[in-house]
């Protein structure tokens, strides 16, 4: 693994991985740090093992959440902002976070992986532990629910 490859991977995925880990725990940076350390120790090519990194982050975050119920983000109680404040005609970041938190976890997970991490449904399916078509269905359902909640229907 080359330094430039790792840097490129971080530019592309660091924030998305942290957002992904945030779905289960309140220490997402630690989960991502640990997963990436594993990646480096195993000397895996980051760009070719993107799904692997997401899997490790997920496993670590879920494990932390299971160990402590306090770590599990409760709807509306996670004080950390998920998104940068936006400008212009973009969707309100706070509202998006609030309504995302209201979604069921399996649906929210697929939305996060698709919208912000840019993974394909083929890559999302094993992570979300469902079929490719089910991942697609959850994604469409999630979008519809969000649009309704945000009054954009």
């Amino acid at each position, binding site marked *: 693994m080359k*330094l430039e490859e*790792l840097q490129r991977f971080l530019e592309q995925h660091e924030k998305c991985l942290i957002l992904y880990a945030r779905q289960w725990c309140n220490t997402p*940076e630690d989960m991502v740090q640990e997963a990436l350390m594993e990646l480096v*120790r195993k*000397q895996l090519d980051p760009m070719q093992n993107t799904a692997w990194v997401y899997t490790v982050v997920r496993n670590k975050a879920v494990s932390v959440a299971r160990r402590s119920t306090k770590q599990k983000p409760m709807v509306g109680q996670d004080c950390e902002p998920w*998104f940068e404040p*936006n400008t212009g005609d973009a969707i309100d970041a706070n509202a998006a976070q609030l309504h995302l938190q209201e979604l069921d976890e399996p649906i929210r997970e697929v939305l996060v992986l698709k919208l912000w991490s840019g993974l394909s449904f083929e890559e999302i399916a094993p992570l979300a532990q469902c079929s490719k078509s089910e991942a697609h269905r959850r994604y469409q359902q999630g979008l519809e629910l969000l649009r309704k909640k945000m009054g954009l229907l």
Partner: protein
Amino acid sequence: MNNDFENKLSALTPTSKSINRDALFFELGKQQKKPNRQVSAFLAGAIAASFPWLLLTQVQSQKIETSPSPSEPTVVLLEPAKSEPYSLLEYRKVFEATNDLPSLRYVEASAEIETLGDLQKEFSLYHQ
């Protein structure tokens, strides 16, 4: 309509405190310094024969390795025999080492090590 909504959503930038990139890059550097191919059987045998009081763990397991490229450093892992106080004494004498002998040494040598003299020179440099 869904497309427009998707685009607007995906335009939101996830916020985060950064991870510790320095620690990550340091680890990467460490991994890249690890040996990556076996040393010649001749050199491994010669080291073991000449310095029997050194426990050359990697020699014993046939894992002392040199870099495949002359431009890359070679890392030789040596572990002085912990159970032999005499070994440690000799180790100091031969290589004019200081008193702080750790149980584990990573010695970076050039890829030009082909003889015991080369190896000894590298150790001397290391201990200066």
